[in-house]
């Protein structure tokens, strides 16, 4: 059949928008924020909009516990989406950080006199983009939802327009983000040129067959004529396409050679947004990168060079992130470099993921891939919870970002200091802090790496995280052991004294902070609980 007749005879099969109903709540919430603001006064909207936003987020999170999305074997909305662990469990992780953001935002909105409706609606839209990016199965859809998320975050980073630092951070984030998306688009174009499609499932078929298959299998006189490869894959296009796409994604993930903007953006942006940039957008982008790698890893030629490239980026990220973090004096800059290092650890997992199809086959391969995905997701979840705790505490103690401002925090704000210490211990992970999620995440990830033969890489990762102990723990030492040094020019953190009302967003922030510090231990002791939750959500029972 002629391709054009194909188009004319195209019968839409699976456009059920109800499949995305749980995520549409976010969209509706965002629009509701705008409409509510249009019909009410400034004070009223400042009071009720965070409730709408948090309500939408909580509803979506609650719906993530039910098995709503189609199983991973099916694509939906014309093949544009496919859900796996990242669909529901990943969405839960993503939305957790956004929920934290909406609870911190009200005080910031009040203090800096920000436009409330725009803040909350853009937050919800960013959440919408992030959760869809985690399940995107088509490169263009992924690009568009990535842009929805990124544009919202660019604006949220710089929403405090009177603050020159924040605007400058927004500008840098925007320029480099746009630069990265140009790379991404050219990468998609070359992959499209090689495989004639932008749908990842179809792309996987092309890679399995080693070329574009056009003719369908026909049975003629009892003899089956196999589908023929009409055009062999052009390795040049595939590598160029993947390379550009990977560069673009590295920008979004803040992996090492492409991380330049991260410290500036983290320092200049407002803390709640930076928290989301560090966690949710990373989870979503990682999910997308894994889906692309999964589709492409079926091509044997592809494996070796890409392992090399991804491994290189992982090593550089780990080493550079940890080394540069050693000399930082600003808390948020330190967290930026730490986040670069954590991206490096996670890329080790991605590397294992690519290597798998060449090692195993059939049922075993599937199980192994699921295991690696779960390990990465566990790590991401741990990183998200920990970052939420540390950034949340940092915004809650509300002081300078300078590290010296944390001196003797334990004597002024004991709860905050303990929370921050827990977060720091969890971030260190390997070697010091067994019962935390940071430890378990790294343990699972490096176990996979060693199991499939990447021992050297695992050793480098462990060494790098041992280096990281220095700067994380020095902050803890500052908080716990040093007396307050009055000669310090730095304004001390935690001097704000306000009465906290029960049922206010401020108290909700505290509750979430408390919950995440508990979660760090719960997940650290029972990581299998998280994994089995994901299994039962995704594979547990059929729809």
């Amino acid at each position, binding site marked *: 059949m002629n391709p*054009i007749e194909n188009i004319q005879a195209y019968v839409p099969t699976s456009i059920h928008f109800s499949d995305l109903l749980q995520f549409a709540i976010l969209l509706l919430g965002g629009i509701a924020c705008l409409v509510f603001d249009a019909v009410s006064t400034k004070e009223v909207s400042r009071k009720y909009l965070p409730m709408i936003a948090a309500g939408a987020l909580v509803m979506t999170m609650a719906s993530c516990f039910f098995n709503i999305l189609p199983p991973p074997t099916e694509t939906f909305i014309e093949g544009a989406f496919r859900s796996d662990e990242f669909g529901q469990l990943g969405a839960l992780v993503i939305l957790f950080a956004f929920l934290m953001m909406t609870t911190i935002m009200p005080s910031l909105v009040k203090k800096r006199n920000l436009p409330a409706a725009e803040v909350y609606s853009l937050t919800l839209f960013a959440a919408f983009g992030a959760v869809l990016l985690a399940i995107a199965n088509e490169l263009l859809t992924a690009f568009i939802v990535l842009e929805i998320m990124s544009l919202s975050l660019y604006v949220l980073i710089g929403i405090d327009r009177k603050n*020159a630092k924040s605007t*400058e951070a*927004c500008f840098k984030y925007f320029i480099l983000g*746009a630069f990265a998306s140009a790379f991404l688009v050219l990468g998609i*174009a070359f992959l*499209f*040129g090689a495989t004639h499609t*932008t749908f990842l499932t179809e792309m996987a078929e092309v890679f399995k067959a080693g070329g574009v298959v056009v003719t369908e299998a026909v049975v003629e006189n009892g003899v089956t004529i196999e589908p023929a490869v009409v055009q062999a894959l052009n390795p040049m296009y595939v590598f160029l396409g993947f390379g550009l796409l990977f560069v673009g994604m590295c920008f979004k993930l803040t992996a090492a050679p492409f991380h330049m903007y991260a410290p500036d953006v983290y320092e200049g942006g407002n803390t709640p947004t930076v928290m989301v940039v560090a966690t949710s957008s990373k989870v979503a982008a990682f999910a997308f990168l894994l889906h692309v790698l999964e589709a492409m890893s079926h091509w044997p030629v592809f494996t070796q060079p890409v392992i090399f490239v991804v491994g290189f980026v992982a090593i550089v990220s780990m080493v550079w992130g940890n080394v540069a973090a050693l000399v930082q004096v600003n808390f948020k800059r330190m967290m930026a470099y730490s986040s670069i290092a954590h991206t490096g650890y996670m890329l080790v997992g991605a590397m294992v993921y690519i290597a798998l199809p060449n090692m195993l086959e059939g049922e075993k391969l599937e199980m192994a891939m699921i295991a690696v995905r779960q390990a990465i997701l566990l790590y991401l979840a741990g990183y998200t919870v920990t970052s939420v705790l540390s950034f949340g505490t940092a915004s809650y103690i509300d002081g300078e970002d300078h590290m010296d401002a944390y001196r003797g925090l334990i004597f002024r704000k004991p709860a905050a200091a303990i929370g921050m210490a827990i977060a720091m211990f969890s971030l260190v992970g390997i070697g010091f802090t067994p019962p935390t999620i940071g430890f378990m995440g790294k343990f699972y990830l490096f176990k996979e790496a060693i199991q499939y033969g990447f021992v050297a890489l695992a050793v480098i990762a462990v060494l790098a995280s041992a280096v990281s102990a220095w700067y994380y723990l020095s902050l803890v030492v500052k908080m716990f052991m040093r007396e307050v040094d009055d000669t310090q020019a730095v304004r001390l953190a935690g001097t704000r004294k306000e009465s906290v009302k029960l049922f206010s967003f401020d108290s909700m922030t505290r509750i979430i902070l408390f919950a995440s510090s508990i979660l760090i231990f719960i997940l650290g002791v029972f990581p299998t609980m998280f994994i089995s939750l994901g299994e039962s959500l995704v594979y547990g029972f059929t729809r």
Partner: protein
Amino acid sequence: MGESIFEANLILSLFLFTVGILGVMWKRNAISLFMSVELMLNAANLAFVTFAFQHGIIDGGILVLFIMTVAAAEAGVGLAIFIALFRVRRHLRVDEHDMLHG
């Protein structure tokens, strides 16, 4: 004639992309910087259309339409950010925006 222009178009696309990268590296004015990014997006569009024409896949045209929409959205937000930046700093010289480091 159709047979011989693909390579030329792909090379043109890569060339425009490289010029875009160079622009982002060399230019000092924020708006020129962003124009270079637009040039890179145009290069991607050219690659899409070339592939669509070479292989007879109509999809390429649609992908280009979407990318144009995204570029327009990005331009809108970006220029708004530039205006905001100009309001607080009174200039758009990129290498003098160095409040954030160290």
